[in-house]
């Protein structure tokens, strides 16, 4: 019996699941529940254990510890084919000797209980192909398709099973940027149409932020934070999440809180949230979200510094501004702002721009600029 029983509307429930290979612990115990119809993205750098989670749910990897429930049923000892999950692989894993039609129909031709009639299989194949716009290509071999089309075959092969849960392991990672954006939209349209719980693995934060209902951020086998994309962005649980989410990367600075509980950052003082005072003498890390900082001409600007470098992105540009004392910030500026290295730049911070983390990297609070000292 499990210590926690999954709720009825939960499609996948992982309870204290962990994975190790011998003495090497690749995933530390964690809990995760995915509601029916929810799109959850597992996000993290390579080797963080995100694909291992999918494989454990699919039954392709054994679970070292904990319980996995799919559609309310404990599946730790259930064979992959009986788990009611379908997986789209990082590599498309299409059968190269079979036509698109046979590839899509393969799960149904394998079905024994009930054994399906040929007409039923054909009808469902055509429907699945139609959902992913593959009808004209049914008689082609995978080698005759483009990358995006192959990926859609893999998707159709998952759809045709009508599973309780979809598992997708970096399905777009090798497509070019334009096709990837199109496929993201297609995937979301398919998801909206079939409304099944989906666990989607990626290392691309843009995919995660644009597609997910919730994002699970992983690093080195440990869950860093689970939350809505906006929560991860506005209130990162630790320095890893703060730097992993958002582009450009958030610069971090190690500072010490003064004995009077005030934190100095360049020539300004920062205060924490009213209910989370900063401990006097504590070592902290301060991060400033570049997209929440902007250039201004106002004399009451938060920071004043010298422009060092400018990255032009088309829609806007980012400036690295040296604030002195070894501190710098990255600031969003107008695309056509005429700032050259060496120019003096004034910077304002939107609310929520500044985050303070403790010595171990965990978030203490947001901070606001109290006043300029000079």
């Amino acid at each position: 019996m499990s210590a926690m029983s999954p709720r009825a509307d939960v499609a996948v429930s992982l309870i204290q699941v962990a994975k190790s290979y011998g003495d090497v612990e690749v995933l530390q115990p964690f809990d995760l529940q995915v509601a029916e119809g929810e799109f959850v993205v597992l996000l993290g750098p390579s080797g963080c254990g995100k694909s291992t989670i999918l494989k454990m749910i699919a039954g392709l990897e054994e679970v070292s510890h904990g319980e996995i429930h799919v559609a309310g049923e404990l599946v730790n000892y259930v064979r992959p084919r009986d788990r009611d999950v379908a997986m789209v692989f990082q590599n498309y894993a299409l059968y190269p000797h079979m036509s698109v039609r046979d590839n899509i129909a393969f799960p149904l031709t394998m079905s024994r209980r009930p054994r399906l009639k040929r007409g039923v299989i054909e009808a469902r194949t055509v429907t699945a192909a139609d959902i992913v716009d593959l009808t004209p290509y049914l008689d082609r071999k995978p080698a005759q398709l483009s990358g995006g089309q192959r990926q859609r075959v893999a998707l159709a092969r998952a759809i045709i099973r009508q599973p309780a849960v979809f598992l997708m392991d970096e399905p777009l990672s090798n497509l070019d940027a334009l096709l990837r954006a199109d496929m993201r939209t297609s995937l979301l349209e398919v998801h909206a149409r079939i409304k099944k719980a989906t666990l989607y693995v990626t290392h691309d934060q843009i995919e995660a932020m644009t597609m997910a209902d919730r994002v699970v951020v992983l690093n080195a086998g440990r869950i860093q934070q689970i939350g809505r994309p906006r929560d991860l962005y506005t209130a990162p649980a630790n320095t890893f999440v703060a730097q992993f989410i958002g582009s450009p990367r958030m610069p971090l600075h190690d500072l010490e809180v003064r004995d009077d509980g005030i934190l100095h950052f360049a020539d300004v003082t920062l205060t924490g949230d009213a209910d989370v005072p900063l401990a006097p003498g504590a070592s902290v890390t301060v991060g400033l979200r570049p997209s929440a900082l902007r250039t201004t001409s106002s004399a009451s600007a938060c920071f004043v510094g010298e422009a060092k470098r400018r990255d032009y992105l088309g829609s806007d540009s980012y400036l690295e501004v040296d604030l002195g004392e070894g501190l710098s910030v990255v600031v969003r500026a107008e695309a056509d702002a005429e700032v050259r290295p060496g120019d003096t730049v004034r910077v304002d911070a939107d609310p929520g721009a500044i985050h303070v983390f403790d010595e171990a990297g965990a978030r203490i609070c947001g901070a606001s600029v109290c006043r300029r000292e000079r």
Partner: protein
Amino acid sequence: MTAMHTTEHKKRGAVASKDRARSGLPRSRPAISLSYVILFVGVAIALVPFLYVVSTSFKESTSLFSYPPDWIPSPIFWGNFESLFADHPFAQWTFNTLFVSGAVTALKLWFDSMAGYALAKMEFAGRRGVALLLLLSVAIPISALIIPMFFVVRYLGLLNTYWALILPPLANPLGIFMARSFIVGIPDDLEASARLDGASEFTIYRKIVLPLIRPGLVVLGMFTFMLQYTSFIWPLIAVQDSDRQVLAVGISGLQSAFLQDWGLLSAGMLAAAIPITVVFLLVQRAFVFNDLSGALKE
């Protein structure tokens, strides 16, 4: 100055000719001529004995040793072939050889591919040990195995039967290794996907793995068939009955200590080469290598 120039010039020439060779451009005329001479000598070394056999098989024994040799027999003499089929069970030997070689090839491909699949893709205790033992057994020469094999086959009461010719070659581990190496190359995701789709282990082997390693199996099958078709020592020992004998042994029996009928022997060799040539031509198309393009992201 001039010497330096010459050296420089030579160097440039050498580099240019290397570049030409690398880029596939035509080489100089003497180089081409030399390569043709070498090729011609090679072809002659390979073909002359065979042509001599062809020529001899159509000659009467009286005209065999004329000097200089008559390469084109005149008139063409069919008597050697008539004698081969009329005085000896040559058709039966051919059938025996084709039957035994076909059976060994079919069974061996089946066993080798299944064992190769298990060794390449399945997790079980002692997998590495089994693979190592098989590899070591490849190193044991056939001559060291013949006597024990004879005793086993005699103990089983299989001497002088087709089984004596079919069963022992099936235990050759080289084929398992070749099959394993073909299967190792198939990405694990394909099987994982099939497993999730509901395929049993045997279905994965039959519907996914076998079609993908078909070109490799054709090569393995062809080698097995040819090896079996020409095998001599074991059939000589395991089968005494002339009606159960295979071609290689049967043909060698056409000569005796006192009488060498080279014409008959040559006719036997030529006739024996025809079926294997036909088989080779038929299977040749399947040598075209399949690939995994389209299976995975490139």
